[in-house]
């Protein structure tokens, strides 16, 4: 145990854990908020100064754990998580809820620990802590709806953990190793049950199609700050795990293409801007999953770069919409509009996030997503390339046009909210600077990427094609809007796959549960009846008045003994051969 503690102390996770402990004990609100910001920055410094290699080893229950595996891939994710953790804590500076603050630190720290884990057991522990800590960001909303959403979210997250540990056990039985390295590549034919379980376990947190509804259900149900924090860690942690364990897996190209496309229409119909961004997030994750499936050096660089960029631009968009919700009390597109008048800085930051997700040149998405697009084009998967292009168009429409237009421009709602609080503005400013920094200085950003694949984002032909992808949707959007043919969002519930879960699968499960309950009741009654009859018979036979209790004459007993001996003698004479 001492080994494990000293190994843990070598990881950049301890500042988060210590910070959470301090926050839980310190009553001063300002000190608590400061600790929440400082702890991730200490973690960031530890990641920057950590040397490459696998260390912080410990042996528990004859299993060799490696709590620290530092290479280019894990370093990039850990850097992004620490910086984003600090940014999110700054955004939540106004929060006075100790529970939320502790949850933010535990959640971000365990996500950092997960991407540094060199073995499956360490990964599993952090995997579960992220699930348990993050649900408190939903429950902190403190409404009945949020409690129910949190329970559903927890079901998915714990389910993912159960599949993961089941898969780990089976893989360990097959290979005798718990090291977390490449698990599978190429075709999925012939995968063992253990590999499938790990794959689906990762897939739940990565929001694979049909396993995604937790994301669009939970993220808009969290607190203002909680949604920002949730958008950063869980899904990117899953992307890291897929990149580490399943790069080059063909099946991921199909899954990723489906993920990239199916949310586009749902995002457009949705009235809640936080839910719209949740769908946009799933689409962006789909692009990353395609890149993991392609698996070339350029594709993996693209995945790492796009995941990192996405942490900041998606976080920035969630922060901007969160600031609107914080000041106006609503994130419904139909109730907003014209907020740029009194929230100019939030508007500006939102536009930076929009430009980044739309891959406008000089913004982060342009230098990151294009690597995946080009790697897919260079592979033999033409259809996947067209899917990613369409997803890029959709991201532009959903996140880059709809969100800023409906919240900050568009028809005036008459609302005149105050500008976001200073902490929120500072956090959005940092995220905007990172988005711009990545886009303006891609060479510096590319030095952090995991492979040696070279890539030039700023070529004239690339900017021309990207310009065409950006300008035409804007023209189409303006024309269709003027013609009144573009979808107008209205408050309501947009049905997704969760309709199947809530309206079909849940009633079926309830019916089965009721049927089993009735069967068990009947079985219990039948058992009780049988037991009564047996007791009655035994009482009749052996009770005070039963035949067994009666006095028998000695002669009768001798006669029975003689009969038994005769039978035994006869049997012994039978030749069993």
């Amino acid at each position: 145990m001492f080994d494990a503690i000293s190994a843990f102390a070598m990881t950049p996770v301890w500042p988060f854990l210590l910070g959470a402990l301090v926050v839980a004990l310190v009553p001063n609100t300002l000190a608590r908020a400061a600790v929440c910001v400082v702890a991730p920055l200490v973690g960031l410094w530890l990641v920057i100064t950590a040397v490459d290699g696998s260390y912080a080893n410990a042996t528990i229950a004859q299993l060799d754990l490696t709590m620290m595996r530092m290479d280019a891939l894990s370093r990039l994710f850990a850097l992004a998580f620490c910086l984003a953790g600090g940014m999110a804590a700054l955004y939540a500076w106004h929060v006075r809820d100790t529970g939320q603050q502790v949850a933010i630190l535990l959640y971000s720290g365990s996500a950092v620990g997960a991407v540094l884990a060199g073995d499956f057991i360490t990964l599993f522990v952090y995997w579960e802590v992220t699930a348990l800590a993050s649900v408190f960001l939903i429950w902190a909303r403190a409404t009945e709806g949020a409690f129910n959403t949190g329970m559903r979210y927890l079901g998915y997250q714990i389910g993912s953990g159960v599949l993961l540990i089941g898969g780990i056990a089976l893989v360990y039985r097959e290979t005798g190793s718990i090291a977390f390295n490449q698990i599978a590549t190429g075709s999925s034919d012939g995968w063992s049950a253990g590999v499938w379980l790990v794959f689906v376990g990762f897939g739940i947190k990565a929001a694979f199609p049909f396993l995604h509804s937790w994301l669009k259900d939970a993220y808009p149900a969290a607190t203002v700050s909680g949604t920002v924090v949730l958008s950063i860690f869980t899904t990117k942690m899953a992307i890291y795990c897929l990149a580490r364990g399943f790069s080059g897996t063909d099946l991921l190209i199909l899954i990723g293409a489906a993920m990239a496309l199916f949310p586009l229409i749902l995002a457009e119909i949705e009235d809640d801007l936080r839910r719209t961004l949740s769908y946009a997030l799933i689409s962006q994750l789909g692009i990353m999953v395609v890149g993991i499936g392609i698996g070339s050096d350029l594709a993996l660089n693209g995945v790492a770069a796009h995941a990192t960029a996405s942490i900041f631009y998606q976080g920035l968009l969630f922060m901007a919409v969160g600031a609107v919700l914080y000041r106006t009390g609503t994130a419904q597109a139909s109730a907003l509009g014209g907020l740029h008048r009194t929230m100019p800085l939030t508007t500006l930051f939102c536009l930076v996030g929009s430009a980044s997700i739309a891959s406008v040149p000089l913004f982060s998405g342009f230098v990151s997503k294009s690597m995946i697009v080009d790697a897919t084009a260079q592979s033999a998967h033409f259809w996947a390339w067209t899917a990613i292009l369409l997803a890029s168009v959709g991201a532009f429409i959903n996140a880059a046009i709809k969100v800023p237009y409906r919240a900050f421009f568009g028809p005036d709602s008459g609302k005149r909210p105050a500008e976001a609080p200073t902490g929120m503005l500072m956090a959005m400013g940092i995220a905007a600077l990172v988005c711009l920094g990545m886009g303006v200085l891609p060479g510096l950003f590319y030095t952090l990427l995991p492979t040696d694949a070279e890539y030039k984002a700023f070529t004239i032909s690339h900017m021309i094609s990207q310009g065409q992808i950006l300008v035409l949707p804007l023209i189409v959007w303006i024309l269709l809007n003027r013609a009144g043919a573009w979808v107008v969002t209205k408050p309501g519930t947009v049905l997704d796959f969760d309709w199947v879960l809530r309206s079909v699968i849940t009633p079926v499960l309830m019916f089965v549960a009721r049927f089993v309950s009735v069967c068990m009741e009947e079985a219990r009654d039948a058992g009780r009846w049988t037991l009564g009859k047996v007791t009655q018979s035994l009482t009749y036979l052996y009770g005070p008045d039963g035949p067994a209790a009666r006095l028998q004459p000695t002669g009768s007993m001798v006669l029975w003994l003689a009969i038994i001996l005769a039978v035994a003698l006869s049997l012994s004479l039978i030749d069993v051969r």
Partner: protein
Amino acid sequence: MAKAPKTKSNETQSSTGFWSFLDQVRFQTLALYGLAGIAVLLLLLEFTGLRYGYTAADEIPAFYILYAAIGAGLIGLASAALRRVLLNSRSYYGDRCVHSEKHPEHDLGVKESGDV
């Protein structure tokens, strides 16, 4: 708490601030022509040989422009059509669901621009 008067359209709003030009219909029309001009310019540049890409589709003239326009149109029209099927009332999943709840006040800092 002084609330600004509610206006019904962009044109009647007395706009202030840096972004106010965006509210004017004249600017929007101008922007449309400007965007169309940029699109034509980008198309012309493509025909000068500055063609990007690695697939056979890149050889198709104006591929990106056509693909983006058709894609955007499809997403917009399909969304409008599917909204009838997919959009339901707020209380579709019952009253104990976040869809039918207001965001709780303890998590908000609602404040108007004139408030101190």
